[in-house]
């Protein structure tokens, strides 16, 4: 990659793919689906040039399956899809969490439900990204608001997946995946790139699932000579032997959950953009962020104290930071391209301190500045 900062006029999906390569991703498997396909096309073209591999699989199940296989064999791996394909990947996302094989799944959301509308933006998969899978398990979900964020958040997603050995889902939507904007790419050397921890014990002493609370165990990969056990979707002990023993199951699930709960400060990414001093706080993520910023700027021109609280990490949801940020607010507005998903978490975060109002749009168009502005004016009256 470039040795100094360069400017590119890039498509959101291209920025995502370029970010993945900068983060060290050398394997991509997937299945074509609008509006994510440009990521696969970029990877098919570029990965062989950097010694990596691309494979188009027979469906999305196989796509994420191959990604997990490559990652188990020691290669950073990623897939990309949209809503219908994301639904098909859910079982493997749960699997990735429980076997602690890192992977990154990019979901460029489109109109839904069902087949929906392939070439329009939506945010219908926000809860699916957290709760779409079988069982209880941790997951990290990020939401990109701009094309440059597609680049840098993809790097962040890969880093988180390697550090915590966890599936990381990067959400964006059609309007950003298919948007071209100027993107400054910093030299890769100047960025933090995380690689999974390797065992420092010899194979005879190594227990593949042994780790302290809040930690991912070091990872022995297939082919490293560890005769590694424990890549197994059943309840298994620290050695990797399966067996449904209550305290073993409990220990495993709580240790895996603690990777998130013990590291919230590292994982939470949010930005207080004037929310702390605002009467009306707009909680926004993804493509609504810029619209909300414009609407708040206009509101301030009219003398209304309005500010944006931008969340980049959707899951784990930043309950405490949001609770602190709403400060003196009279109301919290939650614009969403769905019928109301993240708003429930905002209510939990606010704990009744301020009324929380949704602004929901599901006609396949973006929420406008005027719509958010009008809602701010209305909330300010209360």
């Amino acid at each position, binding site marked *: 990659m470039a040795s100094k900062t360069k400017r590119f006029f890039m498509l959101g999906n291209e920025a995502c793919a370029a970010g993945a390569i900068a983060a060290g991703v050398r394997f991509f498997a997937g299945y074509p689906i609008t509006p994510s396909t440009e990521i696969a096309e970029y990877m098919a073209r570029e990965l062989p040039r950097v010694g990596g591999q691309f494979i188009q699989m027979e469906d999305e199940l196989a796509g994420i399956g191959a990604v*997990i296989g490559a990652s188990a064999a020691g290669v950073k791996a990623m897939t990309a899809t949209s809503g219908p394909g994301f639904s098909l990947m859910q079982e493997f996302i749960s699997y990735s969490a429980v076997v602690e094989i890192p992977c990154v799944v990019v979901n460029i959301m489109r109109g839904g439900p069902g087949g929906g509308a392939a070439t329009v933006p939506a945010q219908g998969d926000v809860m699916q990204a957290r709760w779409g899978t079988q069982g209880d398990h941790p997951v990290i979900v990020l939401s990109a608001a701009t094309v440059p964020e597609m680049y840098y958040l993809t790097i962040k997603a890969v880093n988180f997946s390697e550090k915590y050995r966890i599936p990381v889902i990067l959400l964006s939507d059609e309007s950003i995946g298919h948007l071209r904007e100027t993107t400054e790419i910093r030299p890769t050397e100047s960025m933090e790139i995380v690689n999974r921890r390797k065992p420092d014990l010899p194979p005879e002493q190594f227990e593949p699932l042994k780790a302290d609370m809040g930690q991912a165990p070091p990872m022995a990969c297939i082919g490293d000579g560890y005769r590694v056990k424990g890549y197994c979707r059943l309840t298994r002990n620290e050695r990797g032997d399966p067996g449904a023993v209550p305290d073993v199951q409990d220990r495993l699930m709580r240790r895996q959950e603690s990777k998130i709960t013990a590291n919230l400060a590292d994982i939470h990414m949010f930005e207080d953009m004037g929310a702390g001093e605002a009467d009306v706080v707009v909680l926004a993520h993804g493509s609504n962020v810029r619209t909300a910023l414009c609407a708040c700027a206009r509101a301030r021109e009219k003398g209304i104290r309005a500010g944006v609280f931008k969340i980049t990490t959707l899951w784990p949801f930043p309950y405490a930071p949001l609770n602190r940020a709403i400060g003196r607010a009279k109301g919290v507005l939650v614009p969403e391209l769905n019928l109301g998903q993240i708003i429930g978490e905002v209510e939990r975060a606010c704990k009744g301190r301020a009324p929380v109002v949704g602004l929901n749009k599901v006609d396949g168009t973006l929420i406008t500045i005027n719509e958010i502005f009008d809602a701010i004016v209305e909330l300010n009256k209360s």
Partner: protein
Amino acid sequence: MSALHKVVPASEIRKHLSKTAKRIWCPGCGTAIAMGGMIRAMVESKIPEKEFAVITGIGCTGRAHAYVDYDSLQTPHGRTLPVATGIKLARPGMHLIVFSGDGDLLGIGGNHFIHAARRNIGITVVLVNNFIYGMTGGQVAPTTPTADTASTAPYGNLEEPFDTCALAMAAGATYVARTTAYHVRQMVDFIGEGIKNKGFSVIEVLSNCTTQYGRMNRKGSSAQMLKWFQKNSVSLKKAADLPPEKLSGKFITGEFVTGKRGELSARYHELITQKNKERVDAHEA
């Protein structure tokens, strides 16, 4: 027993088994014989053990990953081949053995089976076909013979079973063979040939599920089921001379395909080498 029929002794196999995993297979189960066959073929191949990985899915076979002392991985139900494909592309030097059942590979995973064969990716599949879903209690499988009984086919199976070997051949596998849990020496030879083949290999091992299939279809004890395989197996060579009515209820065993065709991970490696050369040439020009 002549030298020709010798197999690796059980004492040697034990060295390649986990010392700690609790085994849950029923006494007399053919799956254990098939796992023994797989390990014997791996030992006989003289390939260093760190170059092997055993991939399993779900079902009775989907316990073998915990029983063997090699790199191993168990996938979600039906997804052995996509995961193995990712491993093989990432580490083309590995010898991957997918050890799984008829339900996992031909039912829920059927689509992956034909595509892995089409790609001729270097994976050896040991498909243990016991004609039924054993672990879940004896439900009908895509391999259950017509009219046989299963817990979800209480009035007899109305469907026709897959012919595993014909399917694998049609989809493009480059080594395809069928044997039974009775024919251990043949099983070891066929799995060994599958490991030698650089492309996609399928070895179907007909196996006795005495507890479910055998019980529901009055096949008797495990020993009687093994004798059933012995009596009804017909070699490919002999079968060629027999009329179709004489082959009803018989198991045709032997090597169906021993072909050669480009293997996917090797092809991809060539592409990477070529792209790397182009980059170096462009840099020097």
